[in-house]
């Protein structure tokens, strides 16, 4: 009795989480345009998607922004985390606090303030305003991830490296960065995802010249869900699945190498 209840609960949760995605994927292959019933298997929505220049352009834009923002946020976040952990300087706590605030603040607030800022200093709304905004909201997450990893280290590792003759550059290249690799990767993946599916901030800070995917989809579904969108969403689910598997494999590899107790 108890066992079957537990199984039921377990299944319920999984259904709740994955049924919507499953329906979306099924409809991507459904001949029926409105997904009301199963009319047979087709790949025509994928071809329709590829033939839609606006959608493809928005996808390209989104991936470009996501890759650039994730890379920049990871690089800046890594250096910031090293600075926060290694040095004690005036304003360190305030700086850390403001990063936290940035993470907690509602996106809409961030979006409006960024818009006001860009208009105020005369940055045209488009690629650059979008990239800067995405770096901004990804940064707290990368700093947090890298800081957590840094704090897990034996703090004498850096001393040991210097003791053995490492200069600052060698210390970073041969000890700190290799040890941070898993954290850097997860920061990058996290930022990539955050950037890719952001709607609120992007809708404020981009202009008509630079349409991104979430906004494009949003405008397309205003008049009913188009099956091309289902096809595109299916591809994105597949992509995120691949990313998750990669990151899990990386974590496993790190454990195999044996973290210091």
């Amino acid at each position, binding site marked *: 009795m108890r066992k079957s209840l537990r199984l039921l609960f377990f299944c319920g949760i999984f259904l709740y989480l994955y049924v919507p995605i499953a329906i979306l994927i099924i409809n991507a292959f459904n001949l029926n345009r409105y997904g009301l019933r199963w009319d047979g298997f087709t790949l025509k929505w994928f071809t329709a998607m590829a033939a839609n220049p606006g959608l493809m352009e928005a996808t390209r834009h989104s991936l470009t922004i996501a890759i650039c923002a994730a890379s920049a946020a990871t690089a800046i976040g890594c250096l910031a985390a090293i600075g926060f952990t290694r040095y004690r300087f005036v304003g360190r706590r305030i700086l850390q606090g403001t990063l936290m605030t940035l993470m907690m603040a509602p996106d809409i607030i961030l979006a409006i303030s960024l818009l006001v800022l860009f208009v105020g200093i005369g940055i045209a709304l488009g690629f650059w305003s979008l990239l800067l905004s995405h770096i901004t909201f990804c940064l707290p997450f990368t700093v947090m991830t890298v800081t957590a990893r840094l704090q897990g280290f*034996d703090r*004498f*590792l850096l*001393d*040991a*490296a*210097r*003791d*053995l*003759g*490492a*200069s600052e550059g*060698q210390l970073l290249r*041969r*000890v700190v960065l*290799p*040890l941070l690799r898993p954290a850097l990767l997860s920061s990058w993946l996290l930022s990539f995802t955050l950037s890719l599916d952001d709607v609120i901030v992007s809708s404020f800070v981009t202009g008509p010249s630079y349409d991104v995917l979430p906004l494009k989809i949003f405008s397309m579904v205003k008049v009913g869900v188009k099956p091309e969108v289902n096809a595109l969403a299916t591809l994105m689910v597949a992509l995120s699945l691949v990313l998750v598997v990669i990151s899990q494999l990386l974590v496993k590899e790190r454990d195999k*190498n*044996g*973290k*210091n*107790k």
Partner: protein
Amino acid sequence: MTGKRRLHQQISAHNPGKIAVSDSVLSIRGLSKAFGGLKVLTDISLEVSQGEFITLLGPSGCGKTTLLRLVAGFEKPDRGSVYLDGVDISSLPPEKRQVNTVFQSYALFPHMTVAANVAFGLELKGFRGRELNDRVNQALDQVRMRELADRYPGRLSGGQQQRVAIARAVVNTPRVLLLDEPLSALDARLRRDMQIELKRLQRELGIAFILVTHDQDEALSMSDRVVVMQDSRIAQIGTPREVYEDPANLYVARFIGDINLFPGTVIGRNGKNELQVQIFDRRVLARSDKALQPGQLVQLLLRPEDLRLTEDAAEKVPFFWGSIMERSYRGSTLDTTIHLDAGPVVRACEFFDEDDPDFDYRVGERVKVSWVQGWEVVLPDEDPTH
């Protein structure tokens, strides 16, 4: 019974703890350091000679680890200098000093194999190929870790990590090897094995070792000289026998080994090396060449193994009456706690010998506590409330 002989007459003749400056590798002169107004080191001076094994001994917070970090270059002194082979290295960063450290936590690089950890320092110095390999293998052989060269540190036991940490440091052929409580994380048996191992390694390498510890057994058994530290200062520098048998003050006496204290007053001096001291109701003769004035409060120090329990003390031998509170058999020795009639509780430790009638005492039995004359140490009483 112990065959030891008191040293302190011999010692004073050759000026303890002083080494000719000519063979000195490391010279620490007048070092002081404070952290946020708190004095951690005050005017520390120490000469370390080639191939010497030095222990910095003291309780936690006495500044011994800070002293090590100043020598390694992780901290900068407020005052004073550190010389290596006669060159002032006080302002050099750690990577430019020919000194290596074995850290308490070992601090092995978790993302590198044992061999890569050991090779790290040599690679930075430009060693490549065969020579690098040979040197790494030689160092791993010295600590008997060659078979585990391809393991990652996370897969090693504490003792094995310790060996790798030592190999990683000595492979760079430092002038001085610094060891920060290297054995504190190991269990008692392994610690004893590693003590012997370290001693052997040090003899083979001929490098000066400076080891920080709060374990007095470790300090006595391993060192050529012990530096006893007390509240940011050096309390005494001497060979293990000197610090144990002729402690410079009550702090050192209490910190190293067990000690029995008999409070007394100086009555007068008989010649150069003998004092008359009033202890409780008795007047005893004690060897001492220290400048102590009649009337001065002193403590007579006797180690547990110096005390004798007897019923028939000869006339000339000093003794005190007491009753036995506790006896514990420890295999090779028999420890006794005695409550003296005059007040204090003292501890005696005798080698066990089942034929000796003295070993038949029961708890509560009355005994005379005496000692071999000349084995006592007289020190001025630092705390007059005793």
